[in-house]
């Protein structure tokens, strides 16, 4: 593997205290937002396919603190955690999920197709594997622009078995595109265990087939994840090309809302829950003296209020007018 990447030992980047708190803030936002989402779906006030990112908070949080708004992400149906970490504002996100005209996409995209260009959340796809070829194109534009922007393609472990993965990594490596491929390996693709769908024991081993650095990282460890992201993003910005990061994690709430997890062992699930990355990092921040119980509680309360506000905003917003059905098909559709 032709890696020019150093993410271990003395070379590993370490987030400073403020950055650690910021990572935690994003994680808490994701976790609390997930709680709110599931509650409101259970209540019957929202009807949508909901793919929870609970348990996977660290990955986009530790990555996104290395990005700014001009950097773009392509994510997938299970991507609300990625969007929140990237800074998609809560109100428009909730309004979109609720199918309201005030949503990011006027209610027309829904949870699987959120786009919010201002925060760099440029595309969400419902087709497994399809975040990657498009992320390449974003990255190509930065290269043409001679900018230092970077694109992140999020995808799951199951997606690493589909053709688009292969084509994308090959092209990105060949063209030295500033893109980071982030596989959120939560060990399951719908109901299929990693090893029943994937012939190799670690997705990262596939990077060698594209002469690309690839490595597996504990996606539930904010420090490890931060260091990996930092290195891969720097590499991309420096024009050295793409990186494949496989971030090991676990999804707490099944594939989609309503999934009863029958395909997991009770034990593996219990073990994962016991290692809740949100609670874990919280404890670590306090133990290290980076934050106090009080400061985090205050942060969490603020987030809770923001979520509450967003839900209310969404549910009190209007539905899109019927003209929206024919608008945006073409640039001039529905324009009188």
């Amino acid at each position, binding site marked *: 593997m032709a890696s020019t990447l150093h993410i271990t030992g003395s070379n590993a980047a370490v987030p400073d205290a403020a950055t650690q708190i910021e990572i935690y803030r994003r994680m808490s936002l994701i976790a609390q937002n997930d709680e709110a989402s599931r509650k409101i779906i259970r209540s019957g006030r929202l009807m949508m396919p909901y793919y929870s990112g609970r348990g996977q908070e660290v990955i986009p949080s530790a990555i996104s603190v290395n990005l700014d708004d001009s950097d773009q992400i392509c994510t997938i149906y299970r991507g609300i955690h990625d969007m929140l970490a990237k800074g998609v504002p809560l109100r428009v996100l909730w309004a979109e999920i609720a*199918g309201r005209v005030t949503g990011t996409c006027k209610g027309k995209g829904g949870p699987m197709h959120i786009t919010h260009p201002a925060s760099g959340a440029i595309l969400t796809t419902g087709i497994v594997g399809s975040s990657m070829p498009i992320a390449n194109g974003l990255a190509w534009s930065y290269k043409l622009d001679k900018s230092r922007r970077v694109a992140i393609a999020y995808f799951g472990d199951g997606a690493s078995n589909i053709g688009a993965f292969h084509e994308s990594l090959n092209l990105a490596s060949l063209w030295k595109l500033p893109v980071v491929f982030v596989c959120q390996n939560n060990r399951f693709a719908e109901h299929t265990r990693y090893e*029943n769908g994937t012939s190799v024991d670690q997705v990262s081993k596939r990077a060698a087939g594209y002469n690309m650095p690839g490595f597996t990282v504990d996606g539930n460890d904010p420090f490890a994840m931060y260091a990996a992201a930092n290195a891969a993003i720097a590499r991309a910005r420096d024009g050295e090309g793409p990186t494949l990061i496989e971030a090991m994690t676990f999804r707490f709430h099944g594939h989609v809302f309503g999934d009863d997890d029958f395909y997991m062992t009770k034990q593996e699930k219990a073990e994962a829950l016991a290692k809740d990355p949100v609670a874990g990092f919280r404890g670590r921040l306090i133990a290290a003296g980076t934050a106090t119980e009080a400061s985090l509680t205050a942060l969490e309360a603020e987030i809770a209020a923001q979520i509450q506000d967003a839900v209310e905003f969404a549910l009190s917003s209007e539905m899109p007018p019927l003209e929206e*059905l024919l608008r945006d098909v073409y640039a001039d559709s529905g324009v009188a």
Partner: protein
Amino acid sequence: MTVQTKKLNIIQAINEAIAEAMEADPKVLVLGEDVADREGGGVVGVTRGLSARFGDERVRSTPITEQAIIGAAIGVAINGYKPIAEIMLMNFTTVAMDMIVNHAAKLRFMSGGQTSVPIVIRMMTGAGIASGGQHSDFLEAWFAHTPGLKVVAPSNPEDAKGLMLSCIVDPDPCMFIECSRAYGNSGMVPVDLAPIPLGKAKVVQEGSDVTIISYSEIFVRAQQAAAELAKEGISVELIDLRTISPWDRETVVASVRKTGRAVVAHEAVRAFGVGAEIVATLQDELFGILKGPIKRLGAPYTSVPFSKVLEDAFVVSVADIAAAARATMV
């Protein structure tokens, strides 16, 4: 002679058909994402219990790999097996179109009849369940436009079972379209149901004023529209196309020859949809006999929207069908 029946919904009906076929012929196989019981027997349970009963060699869950799924089905079929491949949602055929269109559909022809590809490709789809733009499309027109494929879309449990039985034994590749909205619809199905021949439409209700032609779940709406219209004194002849390709031109033409009026309704986008072929054929065969223009109903020229209000407006409704039928009467 009384026919013994039992109540089944569409999921159960398809499941039974596959189970009976697997029982009868050890060459029948099932493959697809999450189709085995370890993975739950399919996301909505269509293949539930089959791997337990017929073994993990004959019912195989696959990776997310639609090209490889259809490729494996084609190869195993060439060598005499009868695989039933699931593509979870119809929109995901877009990553396997080469295998379906350039290979499954053409191999018999291109080999001069030496090889055949007796596969069934099952797909669910349909708007109305908030799945948004990439999970809801009806794409049957693409497949009907592809010589070599057969395209089937049942509207009820009996047809679902009987058509599936036929697709499995059919020597050619069959695209089997399941509407997710209709899965739970139940009906009485004969216990010893015989295969329902492909290419045969069903005249579900005879009538004299106007023929309504439809298929899949929109046919159910057509039935409701017909009931409404009956109250207004409009006598509807209702045809469930069942097989879209090859479609039953004879039955449809005979009906419209009689009524002189027709409405064709489907869920897919109206423009360049299956309805156009039927209308174009009818105007040719029945010129001078038609009492007015044939009306076509389908989705507007747009993507499937997420927001419920828009999604409801997207799908052809009972009221749309009734209105179109009324419009033919003036």
